[in-house]
């Protein structure tokens, strides 16, 4: 067996979408087009293969069905390789593999991002709390060694994070138990985790913040968005009340939307969602992100966010109808 030179007449097909085959091709001369449906837009795409270029690589190497139909547009000559033949060829020429690795890693990066955009908050655990909880898991299973790793990494990435104090305490404890009892032999440590407790002690200060906050909200009501924005910013900068901090971070995103600063609005809400994955106004935040994309003319992203929200709200919620309306306006626009 060796690579085979094959000639194709114009208008013939080298392979069809859905075919399963281990053949990889290189175009020697002629004109070949790969036709496929773009998964994001649903559009029919045509991609011309350049002379000397490989095609059919991914599906052959990954052993999955062809994702495109290879159509011969003008009489062409190709060389067909089996996977082992292809491997032999490229092993002697690492530059080819490097080039492909680059192309593939870019594709992977792109599709990964597209998937993440669709998933957004609901599916994703906040990495900060996620990492801390891994430490907690090992701590409760007396696997102090692993717990130490997780807590220490936590402190590396989030030295002033919401679980930093707790992590520091647990590290001391884990070290102590590891010495005293040894891995797997000491007590199981569970709980003591409080997530971002609302500090009630500064009653006076809090009422001040509350007042500041409601003033700013009423500025939005009066459509004085710039002023409102500045007020919320002040509250955030003071940063001494967790509850109003979270609320203000949400309102500031709304202000940005009304000020037509859509990119900033998206950025602001994205940060909010990452910081507070269980924020009470999370769905509304997603709605504003969707609307900002719509305003920017990125209907695909807007649609992604709207659909995302629909999967989170029940039909009775007012937001459901709002989103439905927005989706309708997308179609009409």
């Amino acid at each position: 067996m060796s690579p085979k030179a094959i000639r194709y007449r114009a208008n013939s097909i080298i392979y069809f979408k859905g075919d399963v085959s281990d053949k990889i091709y290189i175009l020697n001369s002629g004109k070949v087009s790969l036709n496929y449906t773009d998964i994001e837009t649903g559009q029919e795409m045509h991609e011309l293969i350049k002379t000397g270029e490989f095609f059919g690589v991914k599906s052959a190497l990954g052993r999955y069905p062809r994702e495109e139909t290879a159509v011969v547009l003008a009489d062409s000559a190709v060389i067909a390789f089996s996977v082992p033949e292809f491997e032999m060829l490229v092993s002697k020429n690492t530059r080819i593999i490097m080039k492909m690795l680059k192309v593939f890693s870019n594709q992977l990066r792109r599709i990964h991002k597209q998937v993440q955009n669709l998933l957004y908050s609901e599916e994703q655990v906040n990495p900060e709390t996620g990492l801390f909880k891994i430490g907690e898991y090992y701590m409760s299973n007396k696997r102090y060694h692993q717990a130490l790793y997780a807590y220490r990494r936590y402190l590396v990435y989030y030295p002033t994070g919401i679980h930093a104090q707790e992590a520091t305490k647990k590290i001391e404890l884990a070290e102590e138990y590891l010495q005293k009892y040894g891995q797997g032999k000491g007590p199981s440590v569970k709980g003591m985790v409080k997530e971002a407790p609302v500090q009630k002690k500064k009653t006076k200060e809090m009422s001040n913040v509350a007042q500041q906050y409601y003033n700013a909200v009423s500025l939005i009501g009066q459509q004085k968005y710039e002023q409102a924005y500045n007020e919320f910013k002040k509250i955030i900068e003071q940063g001494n009340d967790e509850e109003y901090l979270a609320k203000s971070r949400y309102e500031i995103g709304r202000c940005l939307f009304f000020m037509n600063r859509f990119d900033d609005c998206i950025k602001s809400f994205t940060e909010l969602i990452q910081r507070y994955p269980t924020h009470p106004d999370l769905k509304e935040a997603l709605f504003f992100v969707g609307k900002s994309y719509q305003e920017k003319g990125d209907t695909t992203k807007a649609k992604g966010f709207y659909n995302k929200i629909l999967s989170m709200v029940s039909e009775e919620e007012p937001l459901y109808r709002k989103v439905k309306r927005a989706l309708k306006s997308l179609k009409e626009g």
Partner: protein
Amino acid sequence: MNGINSMFDRFGVTFQRGDIIFCEFEPGDNFYLIQSGRVQILKIMGDIEKTIDILQPGEIFGEMAILEEAPRSATAIALDEVKALEFNRENFEILMQGNPQIALKLLKLFTKRIYDQKRRFMILTLEDIEARVADVFLMLAEKSPQEEETNKRVFSTTVDDIAHWAGMSPAKCREVLNHFAAQRRIEIYSDRIVVKNINDFARFVSSRRKQRE
């Protein structure tokens, strides 16, 4: 494989048995090629630990680190003393150039990842949440082709896993599954879910996908 030995001097790392190599949710900078020893890939879900894979010498893991800003999606622990080559975005080109076999391995891994992510994207773009859950079953069926000529498929997949693939909360996913069960399209057991007619799901999903277009 002399090249690998000299590379180990420069890029080799050793982990003791039980060491965490990286933790889920950590930002990922490095990826690894196992030289010796086994590595367990796992996820912690609440109070349970779920093994996703056990990797052998010659296998690559953590390769998603090649993507920017992707936190680790699972935890890797050394099951034995593990010797591995450590790669990162900066050094991997140099490493690959002298080692076509490793580069090829990575190339194959990327093709698989791209396919998986594309498939996931297809699922997530379905508007109808029932169709999304049905499409998860189709994807699972594609991954483990069955020789027998029957439409019935058995999946030992948990509701949480299906919810994860379908991009919805486990509660919502359970609702959809219960609805399918009420329609007698599936049967839910504690350790498995039986899809009575996978072709029925295929038709259902493709009709919903067409509507979208």
